[in-house]
């Protein structure tokens, strides 16, 4: 077998999370009109302001068109064929505690390696589990409440903290921001809500685990994280979905707000079903994530490991308003088989002495197409702003592609920007070199890829870094063989 064939065979193992949970669910029939929006709002027993907010978004969405500027080629999405709400059937009014959660759901999460039982206390991570359109369980609520931290499903927040919600919702990602964010604003079903009060350092890692289960549904969750003055939080999210031949839409919105001296670290390990080796099926991951450093000395850090999804379209960004605020973006994106990834970030420097760092590592294998798209914008008010961008691409095999679109807009002459970029290839020479030292081809590829991603992985919380490395190894299986 030639070295190239070896490389190509090593980048393809199966998707481990592709099972379907047989569970009864309540779903809205397919279709989208104002009644759908009203129905979702009614099911969730929302206050009038939110119903109106959704309807405004829906009306605007109808005037919008899907963006076509990204380097991705989705099949057309029939928005009338999707169901916009699906929830596992609940016998009572809703789970009051984990004991009320359907055992099948608990089993699903156990299978995914996400323990919802609080006896998994050793893990020290509080989890909000979102299954299709609803949050099914949030762990460690009591302990967090003692610290004053609010960590609950978005639906709970609507009921219990409407004032906070009304104050912050849509203030970072406006409804009309883009096609998918606008759709989300109209039909979002659940998600996570986090509020860290002044001066509190969140006592544990918070995490949300998103699972798409039902067929023909879209998942539209919203996450809103508010870090009040001087607070500190680290938040992780993970995502999986069953294997299906149809593409499924996931259009989420994440908004982060960091007030004076606050820090938010947001880490994602995205492993939605990527489709099969012929590019059939897989999730369309069209996500809008943005954080606003409102206060001085605030800091928002995005770290993402994107190995799943048929198509990824996301640009976790930072709006650096506060003086001395810091934005960071660390990304590993993998496109194997027929996956397409168009991802990157926007760093908008508004306040003086704002700083941003971008480290992007793109890996392309099989027929995968990987695009980095980034914008660094320095406004006239951002005296002394600084940015460092590093953008590296790694190619495996001969059929894949790596593309880079770095945009820079500078309106202040005191700004300092650095940009480094590289494109490399795992060569047969590198592979044979490792093999000749007694290391298997698979281990060699993992070693080389991990070496390539090292500067991003070190930004992840420890337990996630290990998971990310393993995930990358699985996602690359069969790329060499």
């Amino acid at each position, binding site marked *: 077998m030639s070295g190239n064939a070896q490389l190509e065979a090593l980048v393809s193992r199966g998707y481990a999370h592709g099972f379907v949970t047989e569970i009864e669910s309540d779903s809205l029939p397919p279709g989208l009109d104002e009644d759908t929006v009203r129905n979702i709002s009614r099911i969730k027993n929302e206050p009038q302001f939110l119903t109106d907010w959704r309807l405004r978004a829906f009306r605007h969405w109808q005037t919008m068109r899907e963006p076509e500027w990204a380097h991705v080629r989705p099949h057309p999405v029939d928005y009338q064929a999707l169901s916009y709400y699906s929830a596992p059937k609940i016998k009572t009014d809703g789970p009051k505690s984990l004991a009320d959660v359907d055992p099948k759901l608990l089993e699903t999460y156990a299978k995914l390696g996400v323990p919802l039982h609080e006896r998994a206390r050793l893990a020290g991570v509080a989890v909000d589990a979102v299954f299709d359109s609803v949050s099914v369980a949030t762990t460690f609520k009591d302990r967090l409440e003692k610290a004053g931290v609010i960590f609950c499903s978005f639906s709970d927040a609507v009921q219990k903290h409407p004032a906070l919600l009304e104050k912050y919702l849509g203030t970072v990602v406006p409804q009309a921001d883009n096609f998918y964010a606008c759709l989300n604003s109209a039909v979002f079903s659940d998600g996570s809500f986090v509020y860290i009060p002044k001066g509190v350092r969140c006592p544990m890692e918070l995490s949300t685990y998103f699972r798409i289960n039902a067929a023909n549904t879209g998942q539209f969750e919203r996450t809103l994280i508010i870090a009040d003055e001087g607070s500190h939080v680290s938040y992780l999210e993970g995502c999986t979905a069953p294997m299906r031949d149809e593409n499924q839409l996931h259009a989420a919105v994440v908004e982060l707000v960091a007030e004076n001296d606050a820090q938010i670290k947001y880490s994602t390990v995205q492993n939605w079903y990527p489709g099969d080796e012929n590019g059939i099926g897989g999730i369309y991951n069209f996500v809008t994530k943005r954080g606003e450093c409102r206060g001085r000395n605030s800091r928002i850090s995005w770290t993402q490991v994107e190995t799943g999804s048929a198509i990824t379209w996301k640009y976790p960004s930072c709006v650096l308003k506060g003086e001395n605020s810091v934005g960071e973006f660390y990304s590993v994106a993998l496109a194997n088989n027929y996956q397409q990834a168009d991802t990157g970030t926007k760093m908008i420097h508004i306040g003086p002495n704002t700083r941003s760092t971008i480290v992007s590592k793109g890996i392309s294998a099989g027929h995968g197409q990987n695009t980095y798209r980034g914008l660094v914008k320095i406004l006239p008010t951002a005296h002394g702003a600084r940015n460092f961008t590093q953008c590296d691409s790694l190619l495996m095999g001969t059929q894949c592609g790596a593309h880079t679109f770095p945009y820079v807009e500078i309106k202040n002459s005191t700004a300092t920007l650095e940009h480094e970029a590289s494109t490399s290839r795992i060569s047969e020479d*590198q592979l*044979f*070199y490792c093999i000749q*030292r*007694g290391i298997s081809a698979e281990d060699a590829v993992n070693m*080389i890829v*991990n070496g390539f*991603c090292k500067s991003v992985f070190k930004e992840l919380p420890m337990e996630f870094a290990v998971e990310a490395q393993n995930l990358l190894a699985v996602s690359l299986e069969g790329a060499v063989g």
Partner: protein
Amino acid sequence: MLKINNLHATVAGKKVLDGLTLDLPAGQVHAIMGPNGSGKSTLAYVLAGRPGYEVTAGSVSFKDQDLLTLAPEARAQAGVFLGFQYPVEIPGVNNVYLLKAAFNAARKHRGESEVDAFEFLELVRIKMRLMQMDEAFLSRGVNEGFSGGEKKRNEILQMLVLEPALAVLDETDSGLDIDALKIVAQGVNTLRSPERSMILVTHYQRLLDYIKPDQVHVLARGKIIRSGGSELALELEARGYDWLTQV
């Protein structure tokens, strides 16, 4: 140790080895010399099992087992080491990390327990002193930004750590200044032992001033056309290859 019998091999359909026979007993060092394109590097790659180097006839036995049926990584684990003519750069992968993975792969193969990072570092430090290498080497990417001489020294360091039964050094001397050559030769000489055999592929007699071979072979058009003691190398240095190849 190594018995090569009537070996034929092709690269991309082109015949390169054409009936090569060589017997390398345990404890011996043999030098293989010959004009460009005579098949020296091909022999090295065929022994290591590089994909694309097709054996069409003949046999190779290594420690009484059929080497050609072993996968390339299995050959390495069994103790075949190739010192590359052009060691490749692997950015981002620490030298010490690769070396430890290789070391442990061989131990695992022998049914021994893997050594941890601290133990391993101790071992490597000793070998590095021998090669007069700075410790900063360890944390650099594999061959990343190394000079030609540093790369070759790194190959020998790896050999010292892995302690292979059979080392094939492909033009390890090319591109070395005289000081580096001495250090490399010293590394090779410390590894000479009754249980270990080596093949030195070289263009120049110079290396053999520092590493005394038991035998010298001349490879031309894919087979060995002349064998002798170390005096053969001196004769080649003086007369070139033409007098042999034009016979």
